[in-house]
């Protein structure tokens, strides 16, 4: 029946690309919001001590981190533990960790490698001393005690 046939043929309308930029921006925001800069998830709770005389760590790529603190999940106990990368470790693992970190860097940068100690303020110095001794043994002499900037007080 002639009534149902269109004259001049049927044309498929093209996809409207006007909202393309919105979608792209939406993606952009989505990824901006969900990405975090931290490489390893923390297994220990860390509240850095406060200090006034702090310096910024210059090159982030030349810093390796050692986390020390009480485990966040109660099932791992309350004793202070060391975290290297993504898992708990013991004192004996530190030398291997430092060597791995060194090998991941260029030969030129290896001497500049800084070890940043992110330690909770309640941790006892015995454990920190043990870590420092291990770092000395394997020649990682440059260290950084990670701290927060102190809220200024008139008394200081």
């Amino acid at each position, binding site marked *: 029946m002639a009534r149902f046939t269109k004259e001049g043929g049927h044309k498929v309308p093209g996809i409207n690309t006007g*909202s393309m*930029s*919105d979608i792209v*921006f939406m993606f*952009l*925001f989505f990824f*901006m*919001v969900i990405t975090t*800069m*931290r490489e390893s998830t923390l297994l220990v709770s860390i509240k850095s*001590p*406060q*200090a*006034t*005389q*702090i*310096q*910024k*760590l210059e090159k*982030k790529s030349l*810093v390796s981190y050692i986390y020390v603190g009480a485990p966040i999940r109660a099932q791992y106990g309350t004793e202070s533990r060391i975290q290297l990368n993504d898992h708990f470790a013991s004192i004996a693992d530190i030398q291997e960790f430092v060597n791995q970190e060194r090998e991941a860097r260029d030969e030129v940068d290896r001497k500049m490698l*800084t070890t*940043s100690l992110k*330690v*909770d*303020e*309640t*941790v*006892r*110095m*015995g454990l*920190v*001393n043990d870590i*420092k*001794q291990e*770092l*000395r*043994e394997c*020649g*990682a*002499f*440059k*260290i*950084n*005690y*990670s*701290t*927060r*900037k*102190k809220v200024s007080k008139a*008394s200081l």
Partner: protein
Amino acid sequence: MSDISFLLLTFFLLTSSIDTDNGILRKLPPPLEKDQTPPEINKRNIFTVMVNKYDQLLVNGRPSDVRTLKADAMEFLANPSNRVDYPEKKPVNIPELGTVSVSKGVISLKNDRGTSYEMYIQVQDQLTAAINELRDQLSKEKFGQAFSKLTDPKKAEAISTAIPVAISEAEPENIGGK
């Protein structure tokens, strides 16, 4: 719509900051050789700071407080009144500065295994503050600006040579437990 998007974009760009790591930088000494005897240091040149497991301070044999530590350390390192029980000074010729008397004083820091990390950082912070303030003083006297504001690396190095970070940590002994 794209205006709003750009607004959001700039908003996030401005508010998000990559968390920079701050801290106190230190250099560890190389490990001791097997039968290495410690260098002889005149007793007057050593400023001992000891912290026990109750976070109490013993400075040069006397109980002390962390609040007075900075002033004590500064007086010790500078020794302005040339006291005989405070460190000797040695005239050193430093380029940019000329001849300056460099203190031979060393701060010896010793802490217990039970000392809290918070206390340790406070002590380190105060000692660093003492050194930084002395550097600022010298820098203002010689170059007319604070040490941290010096842009010429030669000048900064000259000041660092004149007032070195003379903090030495004692070899840890396993006493005090935990």
